[in-house]
């Protein structure tokens, strides 16, 4: 524990700027993954334990497409769409068979998929870890804001993800499609009785979850090492976020991700050896005090 260092940081503007940006960075990528998990749970009542594998696929796809086309933009779009298609296949062929089964059976199914995907990427791309490298467009020196350091690529990430968060929120609350999705979350039987094909809605939500996770994997690729099993590192954190933010709530996922990001970035200064324990502690506290999470619905 290093409380004096933490106190020092909280009283210095440059430290606050740098650590908060750092928290934002960690949080925004986490948000893309957690939003998908949260939506899928909210609408389909399924906990997609395989979400980390979607993220991993996104990273591998962007690697391949970037290698072939030399265009990061194209690669990111291709990766996101590719994983969206995978999400659709996953839902139609596999998950839809275990709707209504126990949560634990869904967990078993997802575990099978994770095992297969982890091995497949190793067979296709090889066991060694790979690096995408920073695309040329972002190879610029970092900005200095208020004495704090903000890398160009991270600024781009934060803005892009905020944009997506806003778009997602608006789509869910303002559009007709969003209303249908919310209605299916509350009462699928009624929606189906009104003549709307709930199967399409389920598939669509899974596709969206896949798109977001694939996008996260692709956007994270320049600053991560890409290797089989990399999904593990995001899936546990995204569940913590989903629990804290509230399952089914995109706003909750955003707030939860930012909270975890800030806990990580300031926690590393104050509690360098117990940062992971801190996150689980936070999760436990939320579950005890308000199980449905900060933005979740009661019941």
């Amino acid at each position, binding site marked *: 524990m290093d409380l004096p260092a933490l106190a020092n940081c909280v009283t210095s503007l440059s430290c606050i700027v740098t650590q908060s940006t750092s928290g934002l960075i960690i949080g925004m990528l986490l948000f893309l993954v957690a939003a998908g998990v949260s939506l899928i749970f909210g609408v389909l009542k399924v906990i997609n334990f395989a979400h980390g594998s979607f993220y991993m696929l996104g990273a591998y796809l962007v690697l391949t497409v970037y290698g072939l086309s030399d265009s990061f933009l194209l690669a990111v779009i291709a990766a996101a769409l590719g994983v969206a298609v995978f999400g659709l296949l996953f839902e139609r062929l*596999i998950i839809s068979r*275990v709707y209504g089964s126990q*949560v*634990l059976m869904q967990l078993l199914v997802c575990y*099978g998929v994770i095992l297969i995907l982890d*091995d497949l990427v190793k067979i296709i791309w090889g066991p060694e870890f790979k690096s995408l490298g920073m695309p040329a467009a972002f190879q610029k020196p970092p900005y200095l804001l208020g004495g704090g350091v903000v890398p160009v690529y991270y600024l781009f990430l934060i803005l892009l993800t905020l944009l997506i968060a806003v778009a997602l929120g608006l789509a869910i609350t303002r559009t007709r499609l969003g209303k249908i999705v919310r209605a299916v979350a509350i009462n699928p039987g009624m929606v189906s009785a009104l003549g709307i094909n709930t199967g399409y809605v389920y598939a669509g939500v899974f596709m969206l979850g896949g798109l977001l996770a694939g996008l996260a994997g692709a956007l994270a690729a320049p600053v991560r090492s890409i290797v089989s099993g990399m999904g593990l590192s995001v899936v546990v954190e995204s569940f913590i976020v989903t629990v804290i933010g509230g*399952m089914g709530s995109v706003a909750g996922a955003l707030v939860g991700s930012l909270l975890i990001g800030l806990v990580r970035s300031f926690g590393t200064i104050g509690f360098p050896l117990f940062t992971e324990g801190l996150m689980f502690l936070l999760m436990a506290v939320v579950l005890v005090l308000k199980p449905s999470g900060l933005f979740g619905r009661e019941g």
Partner: protein
Amino acid sequence: MRTSSMRRDCLIALIVFAALAALPMLWPSRGVSDFVIRLAAFGIFATSLNMLVGYAGLESFGHGLFFGLGAYSFALAMQRLGTSIPTALLLTVLLSAAVAGIVGAICVRLKEIYFAFLTLAFQMLLHSLIIAWTPLTGGDQGLTGGVPRPAFLGIRLDAPYHLYLFSAGLLLLCLLLMRHIVQSPFGYTLRLIRDNPARATSLGINVWAMRLAAFVIAGAFGSLGGVVMSLFVSGAFPDFAYWTISGEAIFMIMLGGTTLFLGPVAGAVMLLLLNDVVTKLTEHYGLVLGLIILLFALGLRKGLADYLAELWRERSARRLAVPLPAAPFAEPSNKLSGE
């Protein structure tokens, strides 16, 4: 009725024990005895988890807490305190029961998925503690130096055959005890709470206390699974408290079945066999095992033992040309909260 079925179970257990004791003479393979020892560890662990999942309707994601706690406390007691093995066993069970009491008291108030996640959080907190407290636990390297095994009652656990008999015996004893508990009035009360908590409350049953009791019992037995594993590897590793070990137990009860009492043991046999055979035959462990799991999960959609039991009932009903009787074991309810 109950005592006679208990007597029958005891008899079956004795026969199985005798058979297992004779096995190494007929089939002298250390591979087989190793398998039985691991089966003992996971069989006890998975069955204890099923007391929560199948019988009490409490889907726990964090049961590995007790597996890890059991392994570490037993190994540490033997290494640091130099006690006898029976004393270490007693200390382990008491410690696990106490921890289960505290953790359970906080967790069982919560509904399904939240209960699941909170148990997971507690397990990961223990894991973080094990990793951080290096001077005591050895940190991420695990407890090195081996587990001392002084003789007790003429049993020398450093002799392979004795360890084999001890593990088999412990497995059968735990199964008998857990069977007795689930067949008792307490067990039936648990099932009532599982199926209809509102009705249980209206009958004056303290649902929270019953669930807590189930949690404590499951935790105490779960720790014994960890003890056997720590004897097998002669140490303890943080792996034993990681969420993956909870996952393995869950997969065993899903593959084997949650309604039949021996379902989890069947699942343990299945998963261990699959693991061993696939690892031996191919480098592509993930691909093959994943496909097999999907086949079971999507094809049967219930545990193998449950599936076979249902098949048997349907066939015998058809043969007698009588309408299918109500299942003697009710299906566990599996609604997620939030609906």
